[in-house]
């Protein structure tokens, strides 16, 4: 299968990456090449195999419910693009 222009535009949109009309052809071609490589998997029978999400079959460690983090707003907001009254500013959010 092969991605269409619309597919590429949809993926770019979902990824929140601007892809211009001029770029879309080249990007689509590269993505299709990679998907072609990935398609090799479909030739293998994996019925009954349990998917492996992690190298180690271990369980999640849980921490005690305790407050351990200090307020580090000042140092953290020093690297923020736009801050006012302790808030991160972004273009208007419309609900």
């Amino acid at each position: 299968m092969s991605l269409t222009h619309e597919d590429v535009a949809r993926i770019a949109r979902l990824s929140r990456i601007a892809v211009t009309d001029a770029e879309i052809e080249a990007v689509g071609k590269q993505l299709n090449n990679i998907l072609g490589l990935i398609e090799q998997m479909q030739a293998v029978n994996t019925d009954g195999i349990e998917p492996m999400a992690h190298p180690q079959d271990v369980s999640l460690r849980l921490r005690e419910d305790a407050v351990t983090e200090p307020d580090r707003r000042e140092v953290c907001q020093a690297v923020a693009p736009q801050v006012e009254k302790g808030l991160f500013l972004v273009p208007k959010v419309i609900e």
Partner: protein
Amino acid sequence: MKWEVVIGLEVHVQLNTVSKIFSGASTAFGAEPNTQASLVELALPGVLPVMNKAVVDKAIRLGLALDADINQKNVFARKNYFYPDLPKGYQISQMDLPIVEHGKLAILVGDEEKVIRVTRAHMEEDAGKSLHEDFHGMTGIDLNRAGTPLLEVVSEPDMRSPEEAVAYAKALHTLVTWLGICDGNMQEGSFRVDANVSVRPFGQAEFGTRREIKNLNSFRFLEQAIKYEIQWQIDTIEDGGKIQQATVLFDPDSGETRMMRSKEDAHDYRYFPDPDLLPVRISDEQIARIRSEMPELPGQMKARFVEQFGVSAYDAALLTSSLALAQYFEAVATATGQGKLAANWLGGEVAARLNREGLDIADCPIPAERLSGLIARVADGTLSNKLAKQVFDALWESDLSADAIIERDGLKQVSDVSAIEKMVEEAIAANPKAVEEFRAGKEKALNALAGQVMKASKGKANPAQVQEILKQKLA
């Protein structure tokens, strides 16, 4: 056409842990913006989530209370979408393997009990807050709330009216506060309801298309929003329109619902297991331990109150609407042996006064022990209802016992026959006109005479005895 309403609720229950679900940042409400957003909530490059044990315990507690299955292996997944109050660009939630599945919750609508099935309850992190007041046309982001632990409790579409939906939401609210896993504060967003609403012609098997009303933070708004939405959907269909699946917001000012403008690609969340977290495994021992720590549940306590104290099912349901109230009632009923009287007082005078003062039963200035003293004096005839109310008001204002107030204010009911006879004779002598009327067959005249006697006794005469003696003397 007759329409049937179908409602399912998704409730976001904030768990009352002291720290966040994936970091040691505080969850306290109302701090200065972003002072409780740690490196993890800020989603700095390289930081990783570390799970809070208390969240698992509280989820199991709710699961057991809902008589649900606890998945002893459950898995966190990433739900991907971009939003400024979601710093990682994904929410850590649970998808294929939630911690709790297949529960049920009984509700009472009118006199009828109905069981609502709970599909699942899963653990997830709350988002931050977007503040829309004007920052030069921009929005401010506060991530203090981000990472607060939530249980999302999803019901089956089992409710058939706004009343049932509200009853379910209230029952769940009671349960989570009863279990001590949520503070239940709806104004602060600790308990938020999304309602999936659809309508279909009566008798039709398949559901209509649903619309989801987001973020209802009071029972009143929940009811208003569903009612409006039902009417809107029926009107739309009857006008020849079709319902499109949508997410809507309720505007309390206009009382209407409206479509959300964001989230246009929200339906492709690209869930996958979070590789930064391993599966949560819960041992039999852990479940057994939590089971052994479970309090008696509202449903069980309700049945027991009917059985043990002889109160009506309706009263028992009211009395078990919160753990504090139920415990208060049980203390009074046990101390006095007067279940019905205790129920009447709690549902009447006590509830009215608390309501007037804007207080919860937990903040009631009269502890159960002192109310028991009052009820004992009503039961043994020492106090008339009227005097009892006077004593109740005095109890509210002071720390004295009922007996001490009765003694101090001389409020003991007079049941001494000779004393009452004397007052009755004086009343007859002073009101010949009333006596005449009564003898002429005007029953009401007797009340006027009784009133005179009560007045003369400063309200302390036993009213039943006054009536009886009056009738004797006038016979």
